[in-house]
């Protein structure tokens, strides 16, 4: 059936299309990975500044708090458009892929900063104090005392945010990045039925997200089991209640 004389199956199931889907999967994954990786680095820097006890850095601290609070409360879709038009207005004609990457980074930084901060807070104050007694500087305290204890609290929710961003990047299709969602729309436009085109998109997202979610649970259970700290609560596993920090 169909007006092309070809059935939608003949249009759809070719090895070139398989490559197209593979490429789209790569783009989706690299947007999420690049954005979250950069976001993680920036978030660590922001939290390092935010927890600085000096009064001189109070304005910086306020700025960091404002950044985190504001960008956790803006829809990703609106943020993408802001980044798109913002960079264009500044005269930067970057590729749409990079626009999406910047958007993910901006948002991931805000979200992961909260996770890293929770990690810092999970380390008892006496640990900071004993490091100070040992004459450790701030950077050395963070690197040698706080982070080695905090990472078991930071990694599981950070990982689940990475998985969330894989799904969130589907909104990048709205500015025209050829990731999974946009590829599904393309096939729908050339006459493949929605069940087949969007169904493939759904299946690929699921195939990416589900194993990674399971991996996240495993990591979390491992860390909890191996690094159980005295007095730590054993309530809800954090990654299960997604998006709630």
């Amino acid at each position: 059936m169909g007006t092309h004389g070809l059935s939608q199956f003949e249009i759809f199931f070719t090895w070139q299309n398989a490559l197209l889907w593979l490429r789209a999967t790569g783009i989706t994954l690299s947007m999420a990975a690049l954005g979250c990786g950069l976001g993680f680095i920036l978030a660590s820097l922001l939290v390092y500044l935010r927890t600085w006890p000096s009064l001189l850095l109070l304005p910086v601290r306020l700025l960091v708090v404002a950044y985190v609070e504001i960008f956790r409360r803006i829809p990703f879709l609106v943020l993408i458009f802001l980044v798109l038009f913002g960079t264009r207005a500044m005269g930067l004609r970057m590729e749409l892929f990079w626009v999406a990457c910047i958007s993910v980074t901006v948002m991931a930084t805000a979200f992961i900063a909260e996770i890293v901060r929770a990690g810092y807070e999970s380390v008892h104050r006496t640990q900071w104090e004993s490091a100070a007694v040992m004459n450790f500087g701030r950077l050395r305290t963070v690197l040698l005392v706080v982070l080695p204890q905090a990472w078991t609290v930071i990694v599981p929710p950070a990982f689940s945010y990475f998985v969330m961003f894989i799904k969130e990047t589907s909104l990048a299709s709205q500015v025209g990045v050829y990731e999974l969602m946009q590829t599904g729309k393309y096939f729908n436009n050339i006459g493949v039925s929605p069940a087949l085109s969007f169904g493939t998109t759904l299946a690929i997202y699921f195939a990416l997200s589900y194993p990674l979610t399971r991996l996240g649970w495993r990591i979390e259970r491992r860390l909890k089991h191996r690094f159980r700290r005295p007095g730590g609560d054993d309530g809800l596993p954090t990654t299960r209640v997604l998006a709630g920090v």
Partner: protein
Amino acid sequence: MHYTFQWGVAFSYLPELLAGAWVTFHLTFIGFWTGLVIAVFLAVGQVYGGPWLRRSISTYVVFFTNTPSLVTAFFIFYGLPEVGILWSPYVCVLVNLILNAAAFLTDAIRGGVASVRKTEMEAAETLGFSMLQKIRYVIVPHVAKVLYAPISNLYIVFILGSALAAIFGVEELTGTAFNIAARTFRSIEIYSITAGIYVIMTVIASTILALVGRWAFRVKARIF
């Protein structure tokens, strides 16, 4: 910078944007509460139901928590007309929101119910509590305390997630912003104001939720 900001023009569209914000509000409010009611039933089914019920509920939850809501929305919006069901964009987006919210909330609630310790239930048994009393005095206070903060957070997440309704032509906040930006070309200003409205909306929602939580369940929820 080749761009001249014209905030005056953009702000003259504020009433229109606020009308959009109202649509966002009732879309997410209806969607979230319907989803929550469904989720309570599903969570109960998942904890106390038979193997088939449990398996089908967890399949549903796993499916919706692992796929982007944008793609399921496309599926509903373009797929249903193929089988002869014609819904308005608002209904499509609302149904998609309910399906997603119910899945995420089921997952959360089940975790909360599972976190009631066995010894507490046994203690209630010893005191001769009936099932209703157990629910009223043991399960609900415990679950409410554990789940209030994550569920309020999910509400905020769904307010932000409802922005995808714009793609299907619903004139909620983002959709209105799309239209105004397309008419006036003042994109940066309009989207900045839109982002500001979202920030204000979610801060108000968080504040109300935190106050209600403190008053009803004695939960110390952070607003910021």
